[in-house]
């Protein structure tokens, strides 16, 4: 199984429901203590927002862990705390093995990891709550909340999964693909 995320940039309305719900669902203790995500100077959640302006119509990108099949964070990790979960194809962190060396934070070309200010250990998508949802065969929070129907989640190995359905129909890009990371996070652009 190779679980993947699809985000439809044509439909997203930048409402931030996914960004905010990701934080409240996955990191309630940080929310309670109003602790921010220090790396991104952002709320303690797994989705970052970037607006690009190159003279034309501004563009939006939402960024979280890309679940690379060739994951630099996994190669960089000295303790194998960062690993690719064979059952789901998702990149995971086993916090019990993590020594907090931050090698993965530096290695991730997407800046998808941040340091939990309470535990000083790395965090990324999927957070603890979403992980459990996914294990139960449910959609993660960001996919579930989206009012615009701009997010999909599913198995690339299943031709009938919602992600494959969307990927078949649209023009798609993957971020920083040229680095060879082989990410499983797709952006519909047309």
């Amino acid at each position, binding site marked *: 199984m190779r679980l993947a995320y699809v985000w439809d940039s044509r439909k997203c309305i930048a409402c931030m429901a996914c*960004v905010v719900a990701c934080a409240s669902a996955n990191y309630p203790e940080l929310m309670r203590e109003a602790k921010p995500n220090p790396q991104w100077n952002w709320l303690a959640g797994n989705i970052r927002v970037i*607006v690009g302006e190159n*003279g034309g119509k501004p563009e939006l990108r939402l960024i979280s862990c890309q679940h690379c099949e060739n994951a630099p964070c996994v190669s960089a990790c000295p303790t194998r705390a960062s690993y690719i979960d064979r059952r789901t194809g998702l990149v995971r962190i086993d916090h019990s093995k993590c020594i907090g060396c931050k090698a993965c934070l530096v290695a991730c070309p997407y800046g998808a990891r941040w340091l939990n200010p309470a535990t000083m250990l790395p965090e990324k998508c999927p957070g603890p709550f979403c992980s459990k949802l996914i294990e139960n*065969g449910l959609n993660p929070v960001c996919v579930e909340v989206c009012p615009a129907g701009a997010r999909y989640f599913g198995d690339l190995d299943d031709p009938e999964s*919602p992600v*494959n359905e969307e990927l078949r129909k649209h023009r798609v890009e993957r971020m920083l693909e040229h680095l060879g990371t082989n990410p499983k996070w797709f952006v519909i652009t047309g």
Partner: protein
Amino acid sequence: MKTRRRDFIKLSAASTLAALTMLSVQPHSVVGRMLAKQLLLEETSKKPLEGLRFVKTFCGMCGALCGIRVGVDSSGRPRVVLPLNGHPQRGLCGRSATAPWLWDHPLRLKKPMVNEMRGEARFKEVDWDTALNGIASKLKEIVSKYGYKAIAITHHDAWSYYMPLFSYLFGTPNVISHVSMCHANGTVARGHILGAGGPPAVDPDYENASFLVLIGRTLSTASMGALHRARTNKGLQIVVVDPRMPEIGFGDVKWIPIIPGTDAAFALSIIYVLLEEELYNADFLKKYSNAPFLIKPDGKPLTEADVVEGGDPKKYLVFDAKDGKLKDHKVALDPDLWYVGEVTLKDGSKVTVKTALTLLKERASNYKPEVAESITGVKASEIRWVARKLALSNGVVDDTWYIARNWNDYDDVRSFLIINVLLGNIDKPGGLCFQESSKFPSVISVKTIEGKKVAETVYGARMPEELFGDVTKTRVDRAKYPLTLSTFDAVLDAILEEKPYPIKALFIIGTNPIGRDMNTRKIIEAYKKLDLLVVIDIMPTDDADYADYVLPDTIFLEREEITSTKWTLHASVQKQSKVVDPPKGVDARDALWIMFEIARRAFPERAKALGWDDKYADYEVYKDEFLHKLDEAILSSLAKAWNIDKEKLKTALEEEGYYVLSKKKYYVRPYKTALATPSGKAEIYSLAALAAGLDPLPDYKPPPAYTPPKAPDEFYLVNGKSPLTSFQASLMEPLRFVGDRSVWMNPKDAERLGIRDGDMVELEGIDTGWKARVRIRVTERVREGVLFAYATVCGRMSKLIPKDYFAREGVNPNWFAKGYVIPIVGGGASNSSVRVRKL
């Protein structure tokens, strides 16, 4: 939201990296193990999910009231908000997602407070009895001197259902809401053209539309139900006409940047193209609009009473092309849309009459696309494209929601609605449709029972006419603006000038006039002159600083309420279920209880007549008995109106959170049911406007609401909402990061003035002189010559908000707004012009 240009280029496919990163993904051929289909969380919500208990309810973070599920953890804390799938107005947005932060927010109002020095926010916590008694005794004093009408109440969406009840409870007509700063101009226009009411009364059928034009309407900022229908409609093409690019513009939406305050010129130009190129729906216009009505030189319609002695003034005459005779519109077989000719009146005089459509075309001819281009800054070719596309794709122009911007907004909305009428795309799939009424009972209504006038509440209490007090007196705003729905500015005038009579006490319930209304200085001046100011709210507002008493209200997660579903074309009702109790240390009470308890102390006979028993002073008894009685009464009324089983309705509301009473039926109005306009038709030439002394046709007038910017350092300052802004959501912790408290400037303007992204500047209101410092965001999202700031998100001034709190940053656009109210219609205007000084 952060703009990190470098990061973006690094990450995105935009331009330079496009070739490297763009990839057309083929279907994955690996036929691996089949994953059990992804379930919706919905299906598991019956059992606790990951230790969370989910409650189906509706959101109260803004006035849209979308369907949501709130997950509460084992400690009783709200943790996450999810949409309520299947709900006719499915949530949610960024605001709603911040609700878990609201419940035990450190700034939440916790106890009743007395202000020991007005304006300085020197608050002392007191118990409920002390506060309520203090308010009641002051009220009695005011009423004995100035009468009940000296009391005013202002509100927004919270508790709005109960406002008519409060009017009788306090004997005052002056319950005056926020709407002059919101949809008032549009609502008057909807009434005049289509005989419809507030914003959801008619709406595009987003689900089935194929081409949607949003002019000054964001869609992405509230009512996620409407947004969801629009964005999941795969065939829908959207055009946004706005000086700034709203959030929905990030998607596959065409954004047309327009010069502020010129929407009517744009729309009239579209009308011109539709008429000139014969792209209108002639059949619809002949039968269902007043386009063929003949208009006399005095502007009035020609009726039977004009030509025959004793004729009927309700019989509007048209020229029947079938037999070349003048006839009542109702019986004419082929009403001529373009007739111009002479008619002989009953006194023998002759006048030239023209059809309403001819007059509309004459008006619109002043705005041929090339002329409109010079006014609006939108290319003539683009105007033509939109007009043709509307006609050829069965398009629809949104009827707007928040529209209190430039003073001329009433004419904007009239022209948008007229475009839809010309297209004949009314109450058809994909067109501009009328909402089915849920037949929701009014909380109070005046009836004659056994020959006596009484005000009867939904739960059966009856107040005799002798106790009405000043309820039937003219409201202060209606005295000044006869068509207004609510104009708070007139309350300020009544406080300051005591005309038409003095207002001495003001209740502010769940709203923030300083954030919401224009001309901040005037508001503050008026507050200082009041004898009593009471704020009932959940979070500190700038207004609270000037209040004598500040009382903590419950939040939507702590209440139960049944209401109509607002933003759906179906007739639907929904239930707010209690998710949590107030957290420890928060002694909040429902505003409904608070108002009754003040009245019970000040005017016991009034409270009693409206069914308030002394035992309800006990808050628990109020919740168990009074609220129960109220809910049961509403359910009974709905069950009777729809002839359905009350228990079934109740169970559905409890289990599902909503109940669809009737699905949208198309082709009803104006086809089978007459519209609530004077003629019963869609009125492209408004007879109601004419009767009120207004121009019966829309026109473009340069907005007098602000001095137009002229010098190189002068700009329009426009404002708008975002999916993250409402006045309570703006204080939630995530907004520290995701809230945008900057003022936007176009890169060309920035370059000219030598301003860089992130620079601090000083803004000075050209008309108000108000000065404020703010950070500039240099972005293509705003048109040249225009600055943009979000409304209600920032610039908080209350001393109850810590000095370093993020919501203090930025500006409140109303600081710079002159305070101009549209005569007769009564809408306000929050846009302004400012001077920029680099710091």
